[in-house]
């Protein structure tokens, strides 16, 4: 099957320091949702930013990233900005600062629509309100006209989701979208994300350190350690029978629900000679 996203031998380094991502390969089919699991420093976020072309200018990117046949590595900022928000978009981790505090939520979502779809303000307003309802706002008008500081963290993350999906992009990259949210709010945002991705039929790269959250949304999973993929497979297979010791360690410590309270927690070190 032709894959929507094809990443081959991707390496990323900053200035003269040694590479943060080394020889990464990834494939994502249309509609497929791939979870990228890794701890801080594993290079998962840098990979996402590389795909979106949002790395700082002292980053050296080598290898190939092909989105729907178009090679993104080496593309000019102007050319990339035509792709961003249209054929691929991104949701970030920190909802409280993701929106421009001096502009209403509706206007920021409309910006994405008018940039790539239709400049007309009227039609943009309709599309925005429809999208806001799709992410679970039954009072879409009020939310559209309010400023970010008048919305809660969960509401802001849903506005960002609307912004990312209003143009029905082929690929949506989510970088730990619910980590900063409370547990109850996280549940609703994940449910909304699941429904909207389904409705739009977009494929998704879902980055997280929380295995349970990834298992909620993704059919397939890769585990990253020090800039490399160390485990790859369906969610079912990786979460029940991980082959790589680091992956096994991660799964063991994450499954608190299987443990007897008060007993010693399994640690990654138990499964791995210290790397």
């Amino acid at each position, binding site marked *: 099957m032709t894959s929507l996203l094809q990443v081959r031998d991707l390496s990323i380094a900053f200035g003269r320091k040694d590479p943060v991502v080394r020889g990464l390969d990834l494939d994502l089919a249309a509609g497929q949702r791939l979870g990228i699991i890794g701890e801080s420093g594993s290079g998962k976020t840098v990979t996402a930013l590389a795909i979106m072309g949002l790395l700082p200018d002292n980053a050296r990117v080598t290898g190939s990233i092909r989105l729907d046949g178009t090679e993104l590595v080496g593309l000019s900022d102007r050319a990339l900005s035509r792709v961003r928000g249209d054929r691929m978009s991104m949701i970030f981790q920190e909802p409280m600062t993701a929106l421009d505090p001096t502009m209403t939520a509706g206007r920021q979502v409309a910006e994405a629509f008018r940039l790539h779809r239709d400049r007309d303000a009227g039609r943009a307003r309709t599309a925005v309100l429809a999208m806001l309802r799709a992410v679970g706002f039954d009072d879409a008008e009020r939310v559209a006209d309010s400023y970010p500081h008048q919305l809660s963290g969960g509401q802001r993350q849903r506005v960002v989701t609307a912004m990312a999906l209003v143009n029905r992009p082929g690929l949506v990259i989510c970088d730990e979208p619910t980590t900063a949210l409370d547990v109850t709010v996280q*549940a609703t945002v994940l449910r909304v994300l699941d429904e909207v991705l389904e409705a739009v039929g977009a494929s998704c790269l879902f980055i997280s350190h929380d295995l349970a959250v990834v298992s909620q*949304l993704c059919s397939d999973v890769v585990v990253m350690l020090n800039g490399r993929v160390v485990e790859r497979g369906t969610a079912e297979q990786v979460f029940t029978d991980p082959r790589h010791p680091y992956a096994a360690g991660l799964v063991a410590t994450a499954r608190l629900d299987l443990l007897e309270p008060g007993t010693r927690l399994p640690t990654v070190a138990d499964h791995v000679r210290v790397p």
Partner: protein
Amino acid sequence: MTALFEVHGLTRVYTTGRRSVVALEDVSLTVEPGQRLGIVGESGSGKSTLVRLMAGLDRPTSGTVHFGGRPVSGVPERQLGFLRASVQFVFQDPRSSLNPRMRVGDVVAEPLRSPLVRRELGALDQRRRVAEVLDAVGLPADAASRYPHEFSGGQRQRIAIARALAPSPQVLIADEAVSALDVSVRAHVLNLLMALVDDLGLTLLFVSHDLAVVRHVCPDAVVLQGGRIVERGPTQRLFTAPEHPYTARLVAAIPTFRARS
């Protein structure tokens, strides 16, 4: 024997300009010596405010706190020596809990140098005590001469625990102590914490938004919502048979593993 902590009708209201926010409203609870109590709640539920009031770091709007039978709230700092020596904190963010410009040895020894604590503990060899507690948290003795930025997040949290243990307190308050750590590191720190509490017979107040971790660490727990205690009891029961709807919603929201096609 009398309870270690007795808290009655504790309320705390923050007012800025004309608007005021009720952080805590009429909270009462007791903590027995050696107990490991979980304090669960989402952000803004008032859990941090509660433990800071209990440790005498903030003045309540109304209500009282007693420690070992002696009053804490409304007492001038000079007379809180007994509380300072026996109640110690471990905070959330490893990057902000240690003074970047102080050697680890001095960081750990700081509680010992406080005049209030010194009056309680009397003379003791600070250097030896620092080495002892560093060893207790699994760090090499030469760590004392290095600076915090030379350590990883997990190691820094261990140093924070060592600091808390230095004056050999009765009570250890862990305020979201593992929330900022990676999953793999979190396990090590939790194991260390549980082991120390057992070996030293400490009373533990474990504040967290993560119900799963609380269930593992604390036999009993209280659930806070909007500054009020909505439910308390054995943690296991809170999981299996929550009485208050908010607790139920909290338990249900914890993402569980389910395989997708």
